[in-house]
């Protein structure tokens, strides 16, 4: 098992936890746990002094678990739906033209 120093050396050199874990043969989340002493899934509370821990990332460490997150924010089909409504509404388009 790699030591804390081994992981931190790579992080300090600019590697991400994903690359460091790959190079050391361990999952990225485990690399984070070894480096910081904090679980990557966020299942621990941070005390004020924890913010000084070398290798700490401010949030978003769940991604290191390697399970893809599903949080889409855009859907192309919505635009088609909206434009269909606009096409069907002559009064709306005429009012906008009048405004201009």
């Amino acid at each position, binding site marked *: *098992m790699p030591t804390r120093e081994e992981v931190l050396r790579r992080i300090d050199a600019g590697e991400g936890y994903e690359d460091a874990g790959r190079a050391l043969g361990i999952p990225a989340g485990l690399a984070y746990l070894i480096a910081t002493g904090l679980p990557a*899934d*966020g*299942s621990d*509370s941070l005390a004020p002094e924890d913010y000084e821990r070398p290798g700490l990332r*401010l*949030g*978003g*460490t*769940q991604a290191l*678990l390697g*399970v*893809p*997150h*599903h*949080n*889409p*924010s*855009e*859907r192309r*089909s*919505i*635009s088609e*739906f*909206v*434009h*269909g*409504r*606009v096409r*069907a*509404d*002559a*009064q*709306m*388009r005429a*009012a*906008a*033209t*009048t*405004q201009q």
Partner: protein
Amino acid sequence: MTTWLGNWPALRQLTGPDPLGRGAAAASRKTRRLTARVAGADRVVKSVCPYCAVGCGQNVYVADDQVIQIEGDPDSPVSRGRLCPKGSASLQLTTGPNRGHQVLYRRPHGTDWEPLDLDTALDMVADRVIAARREGWQWEQDGKRVRRTMGLASLGGATLDNEENYLIKKLFSSLGVVQVENQARICHSSTVVGLGTSFGRGGSTTFPGDLQNSDCIVIQGSNMAESHPVAYQWVVEAKARGAAVIHIDPRFSRTSALADVYVPLRAGTDIAFLGGVINHVLTEGKWFEEYVKAYTNASTIVSEDFRDTEDLGGLFSGFHEGTRHYEPDSWQYEGMVVGAASGSRDQEYNELTHDGESRASSGHGESHGSGGPALHGNPERDETLQHPRCVFQILKRHYARYTPELVEEICGVPPETFRRVCDLITANSNRDRTTAFVYAVGWTQHTVGVQFIRAASILQLLLGNIGRPGGGIEAMRGHASIQGSSDIPTLFDLLPGYLPMPHAHQHETLADFVKADSAQRGYWANMDAYMVSLLKAWWGPKATPDNDFCFDYLPRITGSHSTYDTVVEQLEGRCKGYFLMGENPAVGSANSHLQRMAMAQLDWLVVRDFAQIESATWWKDGPEIETGELTTEDIATEVFFFPAAAHIEKAGSFTNTQRLLQWHHQAVEPRGDCRSDLWFTYHLGRRIREKLAGSTDEMDRPVLDLTWDYPTEGPNDEPVAEAVLAEINGWDADGKHLSSYTQLAADGSTVCGCWIYCGVYADGVNQATRRKPYLQQDWTGREWGWAWPANRRILYNRASADPSGKPWSERKAYIWWDAEEGKWVGHDVPDFVPDKRPDYEPPDGAIGPEGLSGSDPFIMQGDGRGWLFAPAGVVDGPLPTHYEPQDSPFTNPLYPDHDRNPARRLYPRPGNRLQPSGDEPGAEVFPFVLTTYRLTEHFTSGGMSRWAPYLSELQPALAVEVSPELAADRGLTNWGWATVVSARGAIEARVLVTDRMTPLTVQGRRMHQIGMPYHFGPNGLVTGDAVNELTSITLDPNAHIQEVKALAVDIVAGRRPRGPALPAFVEEYRERAGITAETGTAV
């Protein structure tokens, strides 16, 4: 042997490279085989807890299209990864064995359920809607066009998504249904009126995360640590930073245990307490003079016709005794009129509305949820605050009698305790320090619920605590989207965005509507644009200027059509069909006996829920079957049970208690017949439209012309929730998604389903999905979700700076004027015109936002000010004053001739009898004060918790909390049985003898209070009597919320009678107390 020794942990540790046992040596073969519960997950779906309104982030772990785990989202600025016991049990809620997955049908007079296929069931419901609608149709009432049906009603929405509420309101309104209601009526409707009339918007002025900046936090009418435990972390943060925490509540709880000061008081007397603090602030000169003069209506002169309760022995001027309502003309500002209440009225209006009673009862105050009353004219002011009719002087006179001695006499709080609270609040309210108030349903559910909140609003304005970090008033709401179900209202009196439902006698045309309700100044002056954009969203190309944008398609209200009025309609046989969508009135609504008796009069009932809640099964196993008041075979009601999809099985947005919209994604498809309410409403509407297609009946035009063309997806043809959200947000004639309500127009060129949500889909991006980790942004968390309005987190934040635009202090800097940039800057989105200079003075005749000055922070109010005195909008008085609860063991020492709120709404009828109070004969039969509350491990009426094994095990039984003194007095033993009795019913519970219930001395008498949680009912894994068997339908006149937080009862040792002996037992109590139809109904 060697291998065995090698696995011995101590040897392995001492001989290996890890002699201190801090690394690999600590791992055994067993622990090495362990894997994380989520190790096999193939995706993490971002979600939001479906229980209370804190809105904790959830990570839903999915493997092979099965949800395998639900955990708190550590990136959420709302919850920081935490979940309470309910949120932690949501895997069991959603995937447990006790959910129903099959449509069930109970035929008329049937004795049991029968399975029914989903398609047939939906078709049958569509037929019944069409028939009931037609049977209950009204074109006119009292000669005025109403275009509505009273034949059916719906209840539910606070647990649903915004998109679902939107479709329900849209479809049902197009069908002419006005009786559309949800839990928001029952929990926080008084919040909307109380905060809305005070500040211009009916939502929390702040957010729980900002409580960490408070120097003092007053929690009153809330057990925050147990009811909203994850939000309570911010109170603990504040405490760690040195804040004082005060808990004022009838019952000692975990909130009290963590407070610096705990103040037990008599339930229902909070106005007396807060009035005492107001009096203290005014008489001791502790008010924030510069803030009060600049930002409140303290200097405004009130009409010379106004008379205070102190002048009229408990009545304000304008009271009509016959109709028990106020005519508010005399409360108005000198020089201003309220559009809705004055000029436009004529003799006919007065006759048809019974001198305005139907308007007063129409819940119009809720329409101030995002826009104050329609003020017109120029107010007269006395900036010295010396004019005897200025608000400040009226306020001083009104509260002069609220001395510490009076507080003690009414509330049972000793003067020294009261003084300590006053000192802490006032010492922490100034330029450098701020105090916050937190409340929940302990304030809202009273016959004076709105005025409880008004009292806190007055106090916070006097102390300069609104619009500032660490200040404000936080309304802790109790359902995942109960704020959303007010904003996009499944409520009878509102349209989306707190636009009022049109009233038959006042809103005959769109022009009348706008004239009556839009203000002259501020953003509410643009109400016509908000309304027309809504009509375009609903009726699209059919809505044109030539037909008033289909304004006539909206059904008209003619008074109160609240859920409690619907119960009466059902009992009278006029309302024949009923939808319950995630709501359980047989347990959760006041007077649950009457609720069930009303359902027994229905032709048909549709229940959509996770399990067979009491509202679904009362016809075969309800309490009335056992007592003989109902017989299953005699009940003609058809009942349909449709299993509902859970939050992980559908996509949509919740709006939490801080006005924050957060999106939850669909993780898996629902099983069996389970469907979302979006699916149910969309496909029900589709079928109704298909059945009515080709109809030439004018009645059917609104539903046939409705825009009902949402795209669908997946194996169940689920409507695409984002399409509904896009309609809610709005678009322009180029199809561009709008980013602000300031873009809306009144000419039909914009579509917007809810103007206050305009911006949530800006740029075609679902802003409610934003999830930037809280550690990567400041405490306001503005890049997490989207808060209405315009993503502002603290409302009225212009008031965080002084009139010149500088922060009141560096310590409390939040928003300030940057002269170089020529705009307002700071930690939040300014709740102000971004580039309006602080020294801006409106030119004569300026209207709309330009009509307010650069130092008017309350931009939704017609005068730009916070309202110490409400000249309009509150129907039971411009100032809060103490009245006793409906059923009370005590008299009102302030107004002996008017113990109770004279304008309260009464429903005197068999089954809803009221009790003698105070010194009336028979009051001694009900000597104790009952208050109800929520447990951490259960959820409202139990539908989402009593079927969950974890939660049921944690809280397995209904209990009644009594003090040791009361236990000794009544022979009650810990964990023995007790029966609690009111004029409505009798229930039994296990006794919990505890010092948490503090006996108080009130009016020189020893007074005992009783506490009971209200989650239990006869069904589920853990059962108990419903506490709402005891409560009456007696309502606040503004919001039509029921009084269930304070009522008088008796308690005796032992179990309640069974069978027919139970109603006889209650009848014997009524006879002993001399109760008649008139009891408790005096003005």
